[in-house]
């Protein structure tokens, strides 16, 4: 048996202070200490910190990643193994998470595809991160840096800050403790006889330099589909290195708090035997797509699964990975529910997915990412509005003279998340 205790340290407010500490639910941040951590990377010229709270008239853009600070209190390894901590298998022992807050990295755009988080107004309804107290790290790159050099610089800076803040909770007593237990293959079959064997198959975005995901520090595009204990992601085994459309990329926060893993655990031992998590990628070569989906189907069969939930990340050609996985896994007799989102056009009348198959008869949708929304002018912008017209979901007229912004919701971070993290749907 593998067991992880996840302690919640509730953070109700963030303030700048002379010393970084957590007291009575308030996170005090020593600005200079955090800046020093960010500037450890010579590719970053300067950084600014800011705080955005729920309900404030604040817009954060362009958002790169959202990260929940955590600390490994007991058990092997550390948070973000292979990335920040040394490589070691995580997912057992005790971990504390700072709940109700996040570190948000923002700043000069990396690719086309960075998002918007509004802390109030209609836009706030579409992003799960408007409900958090956010410590925003706005990074500025050194001059002349290439996109793909700057991207990891910002990515790592966010992780370092999150780990630094997580450490502040090491000696605290959690407000709430969740316990997650999983079994070995034989053990589970003996302990939970008669319950359907279920796994979570997670597709990871892995299309290229600005569209990557890292598993224990390994670029997911160079991996074969493989098996994980579902608690490993809670210690940061998977991190985002992603600039696909903001609405349906999985920020690191979503990996740490994966909704499918959480909700399958809720049923574990009651209505299902949650056997494991299977991860697979979404590569740009057809042979890779075929090989990876062959492997997920094969693993599902080897594990004698009865059913799976399959989640996608991104859209377009990954729709093919999604359909290939679904078709092949269903063909193995394993019942499949897929989670995706839609690009049905601004009028909602177009074909939602690039690929389709009759085997995909159980679909959960995160909504139509092309839906247009008008975001009001907000009092304060953290980051810059310079890129609103070129981010995915924007166009040359997005930023209007009166300060309002007309964009598709695909520009909003997490709006149509395909791990089912949000509440948006469509019919």
């Amino acid at each position, binding site marked *: 048996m593998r067991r992880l205790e996840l302690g919640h340290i509730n953070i109700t407010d963030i303030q700048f202070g002379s010393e970084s500490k957590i007291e009575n639910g308030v996170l005090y941040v020593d600005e200079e200490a955090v800046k020093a951590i960010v500037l450890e990377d010579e590719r970053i010229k300067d950084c600014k910190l800011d705080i955005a709270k729920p309900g404030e008239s604040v817009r954060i853009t362009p958002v790169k990643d959202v990260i929940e600070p955590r600390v490994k209190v007991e058990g092997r390894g550390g948070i973000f193994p292979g990335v920040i901590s040394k490589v070691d298998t995580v997912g057992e022992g005790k971990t504390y998470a700072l709940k109700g807050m996040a570190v948000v990295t923002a700043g000069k755009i990396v690719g086309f595809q960075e998002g918007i988080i509004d802390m109030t107004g209609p836009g706030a309804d579409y992003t799960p991160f408007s409900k958090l107290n956010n410590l925003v790290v706005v990074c500025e790159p050194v001059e002349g840096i290439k996109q793909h050099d700057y991207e990891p610089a910002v990515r790592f800076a966010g992780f370092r800050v999150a780990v630094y803040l997580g450490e502040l909770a090491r000696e605290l007593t959690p407000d709430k403790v969740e316990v997650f237990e999983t079994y070995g293959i034989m053990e589970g079959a003996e302990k939970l006889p008669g319950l359907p064997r279920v796994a979570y198959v997670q597709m990871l975005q892995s*299309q*290229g330099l600005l569209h990557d995901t890292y598993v224990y520090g390994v670029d997911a595009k160079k991996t074969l589909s493989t098996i994980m204990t579902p608690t490993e992601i809670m210690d940061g085994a998977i991190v985002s290195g992603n600039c696909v459309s903001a609405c349906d990329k999985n920020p690191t926060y979503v990996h740490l708090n994966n909704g499918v893993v959480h909700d399958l655990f809720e049923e574990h031992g009651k209505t299902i035997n949650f056997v494991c998590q299977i991860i697979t990628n979404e590569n*740009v*070569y*057809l042979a890779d*797509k075929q090989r990876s989906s062959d492997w997920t189907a094969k693993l599902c069969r080897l594990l004698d699964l009865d059913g799976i939930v399959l989640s996608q990340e991104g859209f377009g*050609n990954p*729709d*093919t990975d999604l*359909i*290939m996985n679904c078709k092949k896994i269903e063909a193995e007799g394993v019942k499949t529910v897929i989670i995706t989102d839609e690009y049905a056009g601004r009028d909602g009348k177009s074909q939602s997915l*690039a*690929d*389709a198959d009759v085997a995909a008869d159980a679909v959960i949708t995160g909504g139509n990412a092309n839906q247009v929304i008008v975001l009001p002018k907000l009092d304060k912008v953290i980051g810059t509005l310079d890129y609103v017209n070129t981010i995915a979901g924007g166009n040359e007229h997005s930023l209007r003279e009166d300060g309002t912004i007309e964009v598709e919701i695909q520009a909003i971070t997490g709006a149509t998340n395909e791990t089912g993290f949000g509440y948006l749907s469509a019919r």
Partner: protein
Amino acid sequence: MVKGVEAAGIPVVHMCTVTPISMTVGANRIVPTIAIPHPLGNPALEPEEEYKLRRGLVEKALVALQTEVEDQTIFE
């Protein structure tokens, strides 16, 4: 888009990497290409080699355009 061109009466060959999507969207003449970010190239090759690779693919496309097809066909 490929269907729109075909519907206008112009023979069209679809050169793309993800041939399953091409099949799903209804292209009739399909030539598989190298990779999504560089369908008609391979940055790992020397320029001359890369040109040869591209030329080979275009030749295949011309063959496809000169071949009568009745159904969706992938020209490997």
